[in-house]
């Protein structure tokens, strides 16, 4: 494995973390959107809000992490990709702003009308943002990004069959992950009705995701032959792993083993992304630019790896602490000035 591959691997790991944590976060918004009217959907919306409240900001830093590693370690390829795909990326960025602000502010505003407005902005941008990001992946994966600055078609690079597939799969995967994560959260807090409701949603989304994934094979064969060859050749074990993990997660959901189902689901999603990476290897930008050609100088890559290793030593304990603390209920100790 070359130094460049290690650095790209780190960026890819960040992408996987974003897909799992940020993805579940987006998915929460999707279920918020589909929760029904104000009264009927209240329980579901409250559950989602409690689950993502303290962690949503941290969840989305993973994407920034992917960006900065790419622009430092693979500057030219990064510049090529973001300029050709600037429309869906800008839309995704604006979606993140709308989503983050609406989510952050909606419980701080008083009137039901304002709350509904923020709620709708949050939910709708939760649906659109992952779609645009998935479309970006589709553009890269189908070889529509040439290696020069803004050299590709700024419309057709993301309005194409593979991008449509990527966007749809991204939304479905987010919704699925959120449903699985929320099953466990709901049961932990004794909300068994909600746990059942999310279980049903998880099973349904899993079925739809599987169907779209199958249909996607035909799309890739016609629209992204290089990726298709990679997926059915070198990447086949990873694809099969994804299918196996997905089926296992389905089984675990059926028998209500939510904690293990989370792990199996995370594995399935990781394997989908890994399949894309293996299928595209050794190219960063299909069909010509390889990982090693795209990488920047050795000193920079070494500095990057040093910073990433040191940073992870700080970050991981902090993240674990956040998630552990977050599972702890409030102890209602009467602290002066506390509002609870």
């Amino acid at each position, binding site marked *: 494995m070359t130094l460049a591959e290690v650095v790209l691997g780190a960026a890819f790991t960040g992408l996987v973390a974003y897909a799992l944590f940020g993805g579940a976060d987006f998915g929460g918004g999707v279920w918020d959107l589909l929760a029904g009217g104000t009264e009927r959907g209240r329980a579901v919306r409250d559950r989602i809000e409690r689950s993502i409240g303290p962690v949503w900001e941290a969840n989305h830093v993973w994407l920034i992490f992917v960006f900065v590693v790419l622009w430092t370690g693979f500057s030219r390829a990064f510049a090529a990709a973001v300029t050709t795909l600037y429309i869906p990326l800008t839309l995704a960025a604006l979606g993140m*702003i709308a989503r983050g602000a609406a989510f952050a502010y909606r419980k701080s505003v008083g009137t039901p009308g304002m709350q509904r407005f923020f709620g709708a902005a949050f939910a709708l941008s939760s649906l659109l943002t992952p779609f645009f990001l998935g479309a970006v992946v589709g553009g890269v994966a189908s070889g529509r990004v040439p290696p020069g600055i*803004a050299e590709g078609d700024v419309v057709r690079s993301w309005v194409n069959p593979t991008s449509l597939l990527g966007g749809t799969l991204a939304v479905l995967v987010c919704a699925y992950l959120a449903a699985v994560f929320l099953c466990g959260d709901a049961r932990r807090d004794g909300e068994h009705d909600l746990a059942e409701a999310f279980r049903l949603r998880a099973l349904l989304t899993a079925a739809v995701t599987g169907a779209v994934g199958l249909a996607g094979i035909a799309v890739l064969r016609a629209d992204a032959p290089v990726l298709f060859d990679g997926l059915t050749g070198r990447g086949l074990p990873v694809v099969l792993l994804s299918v196996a993990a997905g089926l296992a997660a389905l089984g675990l959901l059926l028998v209500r083993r939510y904690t293990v189902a989370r792990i199996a689901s995370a594995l399935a999603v990781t394997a989908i992304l890994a399949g894309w990476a293996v299928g595209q290897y050794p190219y960063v930008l299909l069909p010509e630019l390889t990982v090693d050609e795209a990488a920047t100088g050795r000193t920079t890559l070494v500095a990057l790896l040093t910073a990433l290793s040191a940073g992870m030593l700080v970050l991981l304990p902090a993240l674990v602490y956040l998630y552990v603390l977050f599972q702890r209920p409030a102890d209602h100790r009467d602290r002066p000035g506390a509002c609870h």
Partner: protein
Amino acid sequence: MLALEFLAGTAENLYPARMQMALSLGWHIVFACFGIAFPAIVVFTEWRGHRRDDAVLTALAHKWAKAMGVLFAAGAVSGTLLSFEMGILWPGLMGRFGEVFGFPFVLEGFAFFVEAIFVGVYLFGWNRLSPRAHMLSALPMVAAGIVGAFCVVSANAWMNNPTGFRLDEQGNVVDARPWAAMFGPSTWAQFVHMWLAAFMVTGFLIASVYAVGMLRGRRDHYHRAGLLIPLTVAAIITPVQIGVGDWIANVVADNQPAKLAAMEAQYETTAGAGLSIGGVYRDNELHYAVEIPYALSLLIHHDPDGVVLGLEEFPAGERPPVNVVHLAYNTMVGIGTALLGLAAWFGLVWWRRRRLPHTAWFLRAVAVSGVAAVVAMEAGWITTEVGRQPWIVYGILRTADAVSPAPGLGWGLVAVVGVYTVLTTFTVVVLRRLARDRATLAPQEGQR
């Protein structure tokens, strides 16, 4: 007039891209200030409340912690947009030099991540952690604020004084050394200047909120503490900032003489140069300005006869737009001086009588100091950014050559203006509501 100047002869994307970046940065930097300075002020207040068993201070700290949560959320989303824009708008910069100066953003990414985590811990843990553990959980935020500010400012300082690489004959970057690039000649002065500015902006802004409250007759312990704590922080920092201002002006004079000449609207290279305040620069001359003789040479060289380089030393195509830079610089220094006066007034009365000045004019001055500090900081950024033009990487890469040629890029400006108008409105609405109603929740808190 300014707009026409930029549109003529440059790619059609340049002007909208610059305005989009300016708007995004100018918006984000206000919230970044709170990310840097607010945690320290909040945890200090919490600590005082805990030590003195003062429920009012604890309540104040909790209120501020919630406001911090809202401001942090706004800063987080606006910072995310910036990370997109760096590549989308300026691929010539990121594609060619990302390997040299992209690195501090990686470190900043970690710092921001840590801060985001501990904002969540701090707010969510208000009732879940022991007071001691809770106060300790603020320290990573303070540290992350320092590291994050240093990294981002070092990247900007690199654009002002690029170091840590060589160019081969074709202009390709070779031998990139990202650690060295972080510590160029402008880095430390710029970082200290910005870090202190963050405390001034945060301190004066918070104090101004309570000054308005006191002017409306709410002079209880809660409002007095809400004014005193942040105002004391800002008042201590302001004189230090003036000294740092002298330092950074010298750094600019040594490393970016064209920027300094534009800041002073100085066309001719002069020994014993005077300091010009105000005025309009036209046809290589500054009209209607007030001039303090020898002051510029004294400031820059600490010698009344020192030689200050003028714009005439630089080819016409390499001079920054003078009026914007000169006016922005004057605005920053003017407001800084006024804030110094306010700090001295407050400090003197407090030192002699251990109380606030009695006159309502003092509260009125504090009430406007917050907005004034923000204007001063924005003016400072305009000075350094417009003062670097026409370069994006000083002396090496022109801004016009770094902008993306993608068709339709200008619509991004329209979208960002629209989104930020809405976002600003709602941020104000939410903060106002947070101020009025104690039960209002911050975004990182659980359900009530």
